[in-house]
């Protein structure tokens, strides 16, 4: 066990040392996969579907704040749709605006916003159901909302592609006919199948996340790991209970695979949680009457002291004597 803890300590040390690079690399990977999938799938505007542009867009999004990254993603989707049909692009814009106004403006954490991009990528690789338990460990119950919104948008875009295929050039600006536009818009907005699929995904996510959140709050030993197991079971039960009612054909194998894989990753994430939770390295500058302080603060980490701790803000609760390890330089 000690060897495992030492390996964990080493990994935590490396991640802390290069924390910003790890964060940028993670975002780069997620955005790159998203643009590759989205530009490859939509591919109406051929110029956007190139390796170089995908990489460039991903690079910009990985450096920019996540909120701005999501705006760029939305713009790329709209450009693709507008190239084929302005009406469909307008419809997509309206749907995005509705989802933002009702749901997304509540979001506070960067991770929750990043879920909007991560979920479509995982759904594309049939790993969408890995998310719920992991989100339960890393985020608040609100995380179910971006999961639902993402699944809804993916369904909507697929439905839009179907409409563009069906109506073809009659939706382009040059040959636009009012009746055809109305018919296409009606067909798009009354197609409830994608909304049902999104609702299925949203409910499964909400159930798993809430179960993980509630069980993890109980004060017994290993409550987080029990919460992860309970969340995985709740996810399977919820998926089996509602797929028939919503008319969604969810494969049982996929649901179980997602729950187990999600639980395993969540358990590993929980094991390393201090990395993402509260061990951020800080470089700060402040002053008092006598000095300017330039401080690099690195939270203390002790293997023996961590064994029974399941994570929480109390770990940063500074005592009178022993607080943060701080390397400091001063200047008069």
């Amino acid at each position, binding site marked *: 066990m000690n060897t495992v803890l030492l390996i964990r300590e080493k990994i935590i040390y490396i991640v802390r040392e290069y924390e910003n690079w790890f964060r940028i690399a993670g975002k780069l990977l997620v955005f790159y996969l998203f643009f590759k999938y989205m530009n490859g799938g939509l591919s109406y505007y051929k110029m956007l579907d190139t390796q170089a542009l995908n990489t460039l867009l991903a690079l910009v999004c990985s450096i920019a704040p996540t909120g701005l990254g999501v705006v760029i993603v939305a713009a790329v989707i709209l450009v693709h749709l507008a190239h084929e049909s302005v009406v469909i692009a307008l419809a997509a814009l309206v749907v995005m605006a509705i989802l933002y106004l009702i749901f997304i403006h509540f979001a506070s954490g960067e991770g929750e916003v990043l879920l909007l991009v991560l979920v479509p990528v995982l759904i594309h690789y049939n790993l969408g159901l890995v998310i719920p338990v992991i989100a339960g460990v890393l985020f608040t119950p609100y995380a179910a909302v971006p999961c639902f919104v993402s699944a809804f948008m993916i369904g909507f875009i697929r439905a839009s592609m179907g409409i563009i295929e069906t109506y073809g050039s009659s939706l382009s600006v040059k040959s636009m006919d009012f009746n055809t536009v109305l018919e296409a818009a009606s067909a798009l907005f009354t197609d409830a199948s994608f909304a049902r699929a999104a609702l299925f995904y949203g409910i499964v996510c909400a159930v798993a996340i809430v179960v993980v959140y509630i069980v993890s709050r109980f004060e017994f030993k290993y409550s987080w790991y029990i919460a992860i197991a309970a969340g995985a079971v709740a996810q399977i039960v919820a998926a089996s209970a509602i797929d028939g009612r919503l008319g969604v054909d969810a494969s049982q194998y996929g649901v179980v695979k997602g729950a187990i894989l999600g639980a395993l990753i969540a358990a590993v994430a929980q094991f390393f949680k201090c990395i993402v939770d509260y061990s951020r390295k800080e470089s700060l500058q402040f002053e008092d009457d006598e000095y300017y302080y330039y401080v690099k603060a690195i939270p203390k980490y002790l293997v023996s002291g961590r064994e029974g701790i399941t994570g929480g803000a109390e770990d940063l609760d500074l005592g009178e004597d022993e607080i943060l390890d*701080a390397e400091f330089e001063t200047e008069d």
Partner: protein
Amino acid sequence: MLNQDKIALMTRAAAYEQHEGRKDLRSNRFFFGSYVRWNTLKGIVFFTIAYVLIAGVYLLCNTETLFSAFAEMDFRPVFEPIITYYIILVIIYAAICVACYIWKFFSSRDRVRDYYRTLKRIEKCNREEQQ
């Protein structure tokens, strides 16, 4: 002579100010009631805009009903369900907003309370240094 305890406390306070503190200190300028009311009102405005868009889409998908309402100059069958649903949904949405912002306010107040405690400790360190 540098006081390491004080530096650690100041580091903690500065770290908080640079991250969560920005939002927390802004929201804690409000009284509890004003904060919840203001944000709920903002939520209701957002919801109303979204609902107008949804209603527009609904009417677009039911143009025949709209045209017949125009022809008969009887808009009640078209707008009555829209307004009824709006009232029901806006009440539910406002309740969700209230619950959400109450939770946000209290969790940020706890963090601000910790922050002020740290400031008090810094002040105590300063007094001890002066003596």
